[in-house]
């Protein structure tokens, strides 16, 4: 991407996970429910029906805004956006055009880039149409599901950044607990505005808007495709048409939908059926205080302890970050008598910190490389082992009571409904995975092996300088110990004895 500079702005629709819809008291979660089974007379737009605002949506919006470092506007109100389509029963969408509740803010990408948020507003979603031979069917279940539409500034300049922005936004909303964040079910949808301009040009180029992308990958690919498409046009000295385009994952292409000429006149009008919103600072602060730890805060907290690529993987899983947080808390503060191995020997803070880092390091690796590799990882995430179980397991491996493979096995058993009630140590015992670290016992075994004439030759070869034979001898010790010996310790003792 050299000769043209690409400029990208993204509008994102987030479905809020309130219990009820934005303007009536029906179930807001229609997943797996029958068509039109979550529809009130208000959603159906019978005559004489008036919107009944869901106060929780206001509170969700405050949390969402804070999660994006946004100003919350004390004064906001609703407006009507008019258009005729079967998915819009009222003939207008209730949105916030003139006075949105969420003001300016920003989202920080992993690479440190700040993408400014222009504003974000509350609005109602539209219904769903499905198409058949010569007719279509209308399902209004999704009508007036609360949405916040988040409008970014054109601060994004690559497909990768576009991808990262969408993902970071998704994380921010999921961590703020304002949405289920289920992209497959359309909980978050992205409209991407893309324009190209000669490098260093003052003016932005004409933009095309790619509507309704519902995965980070399709955002990235759509941007890449649009770059190529628009670059070709500009190379030929032609003009890019300002238009709305659709993206197909199947073909990997964008295709025109509606061009500016036919652009609609939405005739925005202040909503006369809803009184205005005037929030006190106290109200805003009270809600803002409920915002859980943000992905950004987790990233800052663990960046020293967890390798950044691992950390970026784990950040997609809020429960894992929460668990790591819990585990770190085992170390700080007074936890001396919780019966944990961790607390038996007194530590000064320094070594406590060191132990914490080691533990977090191990567990984060198990999360990333073992747990997430599991087929069932999705359901495992809903019911993680206790912080104590995991910390103990980490400590056992640290103390070499378990081999790394043994540790992984025990780790997985901690998710097994039958086993998970037990402590790591019990499980390790039952599976015979505990390693023999008792020096006297080991020494006895080693002596027996060395006394065994069958090893005579090997001993001589080793003394003669054939290093690799030690492996054979260690193998004998392991066999004799039925695999419970800690191989590295066994080797040490062998070397000692063979020296003299």
């Amino acid at each position, binding site marked *: 991407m050299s000769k043209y500079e690409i400029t990208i702005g993204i509008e994102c629709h987030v479905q809020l996970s309130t219990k009820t819809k934005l303007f009536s*008291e029906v179930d807001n979660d229609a997943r797996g429910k029958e068509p039109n089974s979550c529809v009130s007379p208000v959603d159906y737009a019978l005559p004489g029906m008036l919107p009944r605002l869901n106060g929780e949506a206001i509170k969700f919006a405050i949390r969402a805004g804070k999660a994006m470092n946004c100003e919350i506007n004390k004064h906001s109100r609703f407006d009507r956006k008019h258009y005729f389509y079967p998915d819009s029963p009222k003939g207008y969408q209730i949105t916030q055009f003139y006075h949105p509740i969420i003001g300016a803010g920003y989202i920080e990408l992993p690479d440190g880039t700040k993408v400014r948020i222009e504003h974000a507003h509350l609005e109602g979603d539209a219904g769903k149409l499905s198409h058949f031979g010569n007719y*279509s*069917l209308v399902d209004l279940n999704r009508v007036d599901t609360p949405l916040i539409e988040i409008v970014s500034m054109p601060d994004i300049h690559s497909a990768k950044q576009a991808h990262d922005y969408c993902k970071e936004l998704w994380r921010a909303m999921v961590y703020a607990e304002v949405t289920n964040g289920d992209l497959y079910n359309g909980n978050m949808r992205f409209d991407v505005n893309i324009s190209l301009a000669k490098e260093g040009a003052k003016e932005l180029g004409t933009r095309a808007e790619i509507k309704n992308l519902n995965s980070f990958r399709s955002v990235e690919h759509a941007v890449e495709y649009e770059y190529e498409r628009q670059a070709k046009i500009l190379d030929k000295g032609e003009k890019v048409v300002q238009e709305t385009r659709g993206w197909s994952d199947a073909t990997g292409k964008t295709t025109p939908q509606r061009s500016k000429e036919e652009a609609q006149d939405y005739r925005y009008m202040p909503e006369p059926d809803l009184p205005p919103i005037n929030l006190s600072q106290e109200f805003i602060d009270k809600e803002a205080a409920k915002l859980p730890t943000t992905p950004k805060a987790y990233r800052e907290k663990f960046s020293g302890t967890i390798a950044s690529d691992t950390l970026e993987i784990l950040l997609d899983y809020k429960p894992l970050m929460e668990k790591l947080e819990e585990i770190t808390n085992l170390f700080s503060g007074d936890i001396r008598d919780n019966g944990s191995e961790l607390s038996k020997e007194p530590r000064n803070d320094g070594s406590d910190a060191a132990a914490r880092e080691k533990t977090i390091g191990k567990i984060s690796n198990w999360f990333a490389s073992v747990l997430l590799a599991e087929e069932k990882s999705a359901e495992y995430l809903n019911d993680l082992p206790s912080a104590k179980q995991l910390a103990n397991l980490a400590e056992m491996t640290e103390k070499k009571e378990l081999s790394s493979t043994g540790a992984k096995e025990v780790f997985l058993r901690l998710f097994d409904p039958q086993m998970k009630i037990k402590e790591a140590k019990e499980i390790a015992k039952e599976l015979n995975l505990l390693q023999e670290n008792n020096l006297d016992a080991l020494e006895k075994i080693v002596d027996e092996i060395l006394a065994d004439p069958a090893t005579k030759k090997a001993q001589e070869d080793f003394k003669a300088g054939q290093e690799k034979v030690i492996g054979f001898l260690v193998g004998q010790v392991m066999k004799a110990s039925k695999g419970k010996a800690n191989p590295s310790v066994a080797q040490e003792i062998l070397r000692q004895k063979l020296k003299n």
Partner: protein
Amino acid sequence: MDTTDKQIEHLAKLSDFSLSEKDSKSLGKDLESIINYISQLDELDTKDVEPTYQVFEMENVWRDDEIIPQEASREDLLALTKEQEDNQIKIPKVL
């Protein structure tokens, strides 16, 4: 101001009416005189005046986030539509 046929056509489109030649003519004439009448507002000075959208003193009127039974069921509502199938409203194909 005089309203052109083009404007009437545009307004009919915004209003989603399929007006006959005759109707556009007569409605056009009416609209022109109405717009002429309301245009007298031009002469009123509203500089630095705040608009009033609602004559209602209350603000922050909202409800709790609790599911409650509605006055009409899905069946009551769908019974009102001309054509339905599979508990959905049936319409000509949307292109």
